[in-house]
């Protein structure tokens, strides 16, 4: 996806929230949506099963209006976390500009976090994107759970954040850390506007 179209004066950024099932990806988007002023509220598309699991993907378009002469749109997506939706995850990653990896802080979910991160890397590579250079932010979610149930942030960072990208503690269920994470990935994506165009630009 083209991040900036100088001809039509448009900036479009596609940000994908990735992570294992039930880590809080949809909750992140729901919080962003809840904070939007009425006049900016578009349509949040969420396809969920009866048990509230994301079936296909969530999509939240953010129309930020005209900024510095550029019509600016952010498109936020989540992927279904469950292992068997591999094809959907791959599809949603097409044309991605930045990724938020939402990790579940629960100690018993560590293996799922690692598996999902490996899956992300494999799918990015399949899309011709370099997993080592694509804008990425780590979010360690569910920090509100009892301390004996969650891994320390340092331990999560050491295991998952080998690139040393920005990381945030979050309690997405009450909005904690959601916008900090979004702000960080947005800045990383936008910082590439002045970089030489790569795939799809």
């Amino acid at each position, binding site marked *: 996806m083209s991040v*900036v179209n*100088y*001809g039509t004066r448009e*900036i479009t950024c596609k940000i994908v929230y990735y992570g294992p099932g039930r880590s809080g990806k949809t909750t992140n988007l729901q919080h*962003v949506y809840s*904070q*939007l*002023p009425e006049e*900016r509220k578009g*349509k949040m*598309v969420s*396809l969920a099963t009866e048990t509230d699991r994301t079936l*296909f993907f969530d*999509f939240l*378009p953010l129309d*930020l*209006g*005209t*900024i*510095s*002469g*550029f019509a*600016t749109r952010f*498109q936020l*997506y989540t992927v279904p976390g469950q292992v068997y939706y591999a094809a959907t995850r791959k*599809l949603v990653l*097409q044309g991605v500009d930045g990724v938020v990896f939402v990790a579940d802080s629960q100690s018993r979910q560590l293996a799922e976090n690692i598996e999902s991160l490996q899956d992300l890397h494999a799918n990015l590579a399949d899309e011709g994107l370099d997993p080592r250079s694509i804008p990425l932010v780590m979010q360690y979610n569910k920090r509100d759970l009892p301390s004996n149930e969650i891994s320390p942030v340092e331990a999560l960072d050491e295991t998952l954040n080998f690139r040393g990208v920005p990381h945030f503690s979050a309690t997405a269920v009450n*909005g904690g850390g*959601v*916008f900090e994470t*979004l*702000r960080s990935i*947005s*800045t990383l994506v*936008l*910082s590439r*506007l*002045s970089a030489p165009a790569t795939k799809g630009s």
Partner: protein
Amino acid sequence: MAKDAKKEAEEEGGEFADFLADVSKEIAQRVESLDKRATPAAQEKQEKQEKKKTPIVADAGVIVEWPTIADRLIEEMR
């Protein structure tokens, strides 16, 4: 332009306003650097490249518009 966006962001209020203000600031900085680089020759080159691209046909199985796909999925599920 950047001032307009900032003013608009201030009027929004809340977490989203802070986010919008930061994004506006970032874009203003980037656009400034892009404006300096966007010489007429570079723009002409970009336009030529865009013309050369093979047009994507919507019914060729290629997803060209995500919102449309989402709408269609919802419609089919009803």
